[in-house]
């Protein structure tokens, strides 16, 4: 996205238009009166979300294990070298990247397909839409439990049950019964997450499809453009920013995923992502300093994504405002 975090034109309400003329008020006082409604939310947010990060930054420079509380001392950047040379942490960085990329890309692709199918009129469109949203409205932990115990379980899970039933129909006596979670742990976690996040992508892309300029497509059709040409040269460019938005918001949410990893694999079998590793380091290993240093590393990583994400949101936003 080339658009800078733009400053769109402010809404037309100007100060003098919306406030009764009070001659005695000084401009400074008036500015504060305008600012006042903003202050509670702003102060609250800074205190609750920004101060902890400052504290994390400070803690990350201390050698601090809660099991040895008297042995707390400043160590500068040594936690960072510990963390960055720790194979487990490096592995979880890679795991996080793979997990996020696969889930985001696959759910965008399926989401696009579903959005294209839903962006037409057919019988029961509302019902299909509702069915497609359902996975997103199951509490994430419940969804993870559902996949782990009800679908993946090798003995009585639905997947192996269906394989067994199908094998029975065609007359195979001893069908394969894979141990889904043990055999393919990362894919198991990814599949569960893709199932939950595809509806999210579909909703965003469907909104994008429905905001397409209809006249333009009609004109293209009259000029004899094929469906593929319309999709390739009109729909896709229009969807580009919606695809980016879906990818970036999806990344932000999935990078932080804790529920699925915690529930399905307990971080085992090479599925520990960064949030889970940090949780482990401080919850079970009590290494406060190292946990904080890992946290700071995660923050630096997400600032990169966040800057990009903010740009995309900003370009969509300025278009909305100027419309």
């Amino acid at each position, binding site marked *: 996205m080339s658009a800078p*975090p733009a*400053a769109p034109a402010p*809404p037309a309400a100007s100060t003098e238009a*919306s406030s*009764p003329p009070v001659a005695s008020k000084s401009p400074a006082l008036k500015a504060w009166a305008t*600012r*006042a*409604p*903003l202050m*509670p*939310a702003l102060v*609250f947010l800074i205190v609750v*979300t920004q101060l*902890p*990060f400052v504290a994390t930054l400070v*803690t990350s420079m201390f050698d601090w294990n809660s099991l040895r509380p008297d042995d707390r001392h400043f160590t500068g950047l040594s936690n960072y070298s510990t963390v960055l040379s720790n194979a487990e942490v490096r592995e979880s960085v890679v795991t996080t990247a793979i997990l996020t990329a696969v889930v985001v890309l696959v759910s965008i692709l399926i989401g696009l397909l579903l959005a294209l*199918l839903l962006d*037409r009129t*057919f019988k029961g469109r509302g019902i*299909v839409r*509702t069915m*497609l*949203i*359902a996975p997103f*409205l*199951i*509490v*994430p*932990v*419940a*969804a993870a439990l*559902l996949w782990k*115990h*009800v679908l993946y379980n090798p003995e*009585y899970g*639905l997947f*192996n*049950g*269906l394989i*067994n039933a199908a094998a029975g129909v065609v007359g195979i006596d001893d069908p394969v019964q894979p141990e889904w979670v043990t055999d393919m742990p990362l894919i198991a976690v990814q599949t569960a997450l893709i*199932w939950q996040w*595809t*509806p999210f992508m579909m909703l*965003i892309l469907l*909104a*994008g499809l429905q905001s397409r300029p209809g006249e333009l497509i009609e004109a293209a059709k009259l000029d004899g453009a094929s469906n593929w040409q319309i999709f390739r040269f009109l729909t896709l460019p229009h969807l580009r920013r919606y695809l980016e938005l879906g990818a970036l918001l999806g990344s*932000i949410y999935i990078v932080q995923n*804790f*529920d699925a990893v*915690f529930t399905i694999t307990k971080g085992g079998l090479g599925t520990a992502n*960064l949030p889970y590793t*940090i*949780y482990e380091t401080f*919850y079970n290993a009590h290494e406060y300093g190292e*946990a904080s240093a890992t*946290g700071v590393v995660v923050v630096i990583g*997400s*600032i990169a994504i*966040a800057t990009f994400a*903010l740009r995309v949101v900003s370009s969509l936003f300025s278009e909305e405002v100027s419309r």
Partner: protein
Amino acid sequence: MAATLTAPAKSGAKGPVPQLVRQARRRNAALGMAAWILGILFVLPVVWMALTSFHSEPDAATNPPSLTAPLTLDGYREFFGAGGGNSPWPPLTNSMTASVMSTLFVLILAFPAAYALSIRPVKKWTDVLFFFLSTKMLPVVAGLLPIYLFAKETNMLDNIWLLVILYTSMNLPIAVWMMQSFLAEVPVAIIEAAQIDGAKLPTILLRVIAPIAGPGMAATALICFIFSWNEMLFAQVLTGVVAQTAPVFLTSMITSQGLFLAKVCAASLAISLPVLAAGFAAQDKLVQGLSLGAVK
């Protein structure tokens, strides 16, 4: 679209439907069918969960699956404490308290803020708006430790009000963004007209702004509710026996040995029910909330 070229232009002619129309219809039907099949595939795990929740434990754990097993409410009875396990009501009450109270606080804080960012905007209001959003992009887990230590020092561990505060901060940026976009839709002319008629600010808020921005604010509330209800990491780390929320309670049910599928399905469905209700109620606004107001 080769059909476009081959189809004869027989507009108004009676008799058999032109080939072009027939092909288009067949194609439409096929695509509609594809949508249905995919929709059913996606909802199938949820349907299976619902069905399993009404089966007895032995029937829930058969291979191949028993589709037509007799239905029973045992799973739900078990979940609601008939089997001597922990009652789900304290965690459900905790989740309700955390979600409803934090949503309420979010609305109280976000409404004036959104007002100052749309109807009577402060200088550099877009920068402020983007600051709100940027807080949402920092991973929660990085602030977890200081919050935990702070809670430990102030005896706030295992206290539901700590979660209320944290969920408020978690949802505040989303709510400010959403409400800003709803309030920006209120035409300034109407507000000015009301002022000329001598209406004071409370009257304007209540009689002019609320009716226009009301539905959007209701959707904002529902989305904040859903996010708070679903939250698991904070609840897992910061609560224990007293302030345990429903998602944490759900994972703690799994530790026991023996068959538990029906019970887990019943519990999962029961705990997801408020979210399903809120989500379907806010279906149209869901996408706007999830995209932080960027998509309308």
